[in-house]
């Protein structure tokens, strides 16, 4: 069981006043709040151990390197990854995905096909469009249905021997749908296609076993699971990563440099050119410690309750329509009320101290599917409460009164 009252003490920001009201933060899918344990880990790094990693033989550098590599091991353990060299530190999901996309730009050729889903975040569309433009590969799309689920039949139809890569997010950021990636991976592998999963919205809500999933690449960001900004991870199968060309060129990713020839370092270093976000990586390790201390099982069941409660309450509001009604979804609710523009609702809720996201949520294809200008999205984390949801309902009703 989750002691939310105690947990909220770790998040001082939740006591802030916004427009005279106590902040209610329901924009967790954009970025999660950071517990003071993580903030402390970052400060302590700068106060005590700050030094560049991997390069020095001196004491501070050894300390910083150890702390940095310890975070890699924590991530390895948390996601059940077989070797720590399969954990590549990046600046975020977007960077992680671009590493893979740019690597395959050198491997694919005209006539090859890439499959993405209609549920993707722009981060997971644009890099493949850029790739297709460069290489002449074709982009095909797994369609969605009105519940917000992927249409697996439409996937089977476009899957063929030409398919080289399949990209799907584990969880949709605007609808919360948990996609059946086991099935997608299994089917894609039958055609020899590689699968990249964008886990940005999954890892804050449960902890996938990457090894068991048999996924080829998996990407996520620290800032969405209580970690700091500017850090992410690319996981990959060992042989695939060894085979993938590097993205950034720079220091520490080569083992030998002359003007004639450069040989690249081993993984993960091949992909970690330049000084990494050391404090960020260390903060990320602290975030995983924090979450594991609470326990993902506790987080999952509490967030399920929040979702259920909020769905029921919101459905009682006249004219409110929820987008994304999969039976498998995370604690995210996207909605609109009648003809009211989501932007208008968002502004009024903000005036009442409630932070939600409004707009297209970087998923324009989904908005086009529903033919709407955007939604209001309330996304809940384990530090949110049932009372906060009650206040949301009250505030939406008030907004409707003002705006109608």
């Amino acid at each position: 069981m989750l002691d939310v009252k105690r947990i909220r003490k770790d998040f001082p920001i939740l006591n802030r006043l916004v427009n005279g009201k106590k902040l209610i933060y329901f924009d967790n899918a954009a970025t999660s709040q950071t517990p003071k344990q993580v903030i402390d880990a970052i400060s302590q790094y700068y106060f005590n151990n700050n030094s560049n990693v991997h390069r020095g033989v001196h004491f501070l550098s050894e300390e910083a390197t150890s702390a940095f590599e310890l975070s890699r091991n924590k991530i390895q353990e948390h996601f059940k990854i077989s070797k720590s060299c399969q954990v590549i530190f990046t600046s975020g999901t977007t960077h992680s995905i671009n590493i893979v996309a740019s690597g395959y730009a050198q491997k694919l050729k005209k006539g090859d096909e890439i499959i993405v889903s209609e549920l993707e975040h722009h981060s997971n569309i644009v890099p493949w469009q850029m790739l297709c433009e460069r290489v002449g590969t074709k982009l095909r799309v797994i369609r969605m249905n009105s519940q917000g689920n992927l249409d697996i039949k439409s996937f089977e139809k476009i899957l063929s021997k030409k398919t080289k890569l399949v990209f799907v997010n584990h969880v949709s950021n605007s609808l919360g749908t948990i996609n059946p990636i086991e099935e997608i991976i299994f089917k894609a592998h039958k055609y020899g296609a590689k699968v990249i999963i964008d886990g940005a919205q999954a890892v804050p809500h449960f902890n996938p076993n990457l090894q068991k999933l048999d996924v080829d690449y998996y990407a996520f960001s620290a800032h969405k699971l209580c970690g700091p900004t500017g850090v992410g991870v690319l996981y990959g199968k060992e042989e695939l990563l060894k085979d993938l060309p590097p993205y950034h060129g720079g220091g520490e990713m080569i083992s030998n440099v002359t003007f004639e020839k450069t040989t690249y370092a081993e993984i993960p270093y091949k992909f970690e050119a330049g000084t990494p976000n050391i404090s960020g990586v260390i903060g990320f390790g602290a975030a995983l410690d924090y979450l594991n201390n609470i326990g993902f099982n506790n987080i999952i069941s509490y967030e399920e309750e929040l979702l259920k409660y909020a769905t029921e309450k919101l459905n009682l509001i006249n004219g409110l329509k929820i987008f994304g009604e999969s039976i498998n979804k995370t604690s995210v609710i996207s909605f609109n009320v009648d003809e009211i523009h989501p932007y208008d609702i968002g502004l009024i809720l903000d005036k009442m101290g409630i932070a939600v996201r409004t707009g297209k949520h970087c998923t324009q294809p989904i908005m086009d599917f529903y033919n709407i200008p955007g939604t209001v999205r309330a996304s809940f984390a384990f530090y949110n409460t049932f009372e906060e949801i009650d206040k949301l309902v009250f505030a939406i009703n008030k907004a409707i009164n003002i705006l109608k």
Partner: protein
Amino acid sequence: MKKINEIQTEIVEEFSFFEDWLQRYEYLIELGKSLPKINSKFMTDDYLINGCQSQVWLHAEFKKDKVIFTAESDAIISKGIIAILIRAFSNQTPIEIINAKTEFIDQIGLRENLSPSRSNGMFSMIKQIKMYALIFKTQLT
């Protein structure tokens, strides 16, 4: 004809009657409703203002030395904001529009709409209004 700064002072005074954000927003919405209708042929992408989360179409024409603005929006609060801006800037000469100050926004308690966040529209609206004025001024010389 009133000057831009006079109109701005007027608007600030009107808003100063209200005691809380709720009343201010209700008034804003009312102003939006009174916005004269734009000719629907201008509600195309060409007239859309970039950088708003809601859609705001702004049209300008040059009549007897003055710039006349008309606008529309799919969000009711954005419509109120563009209505205020049109009241302040429409029917003025290009040079007056270009030189006009915009601090009055701060004073009517709508500051959040002037933040550098790109999701927000007022900044882009003012930019677009001044842009139109600039274009007409260039045509003059």
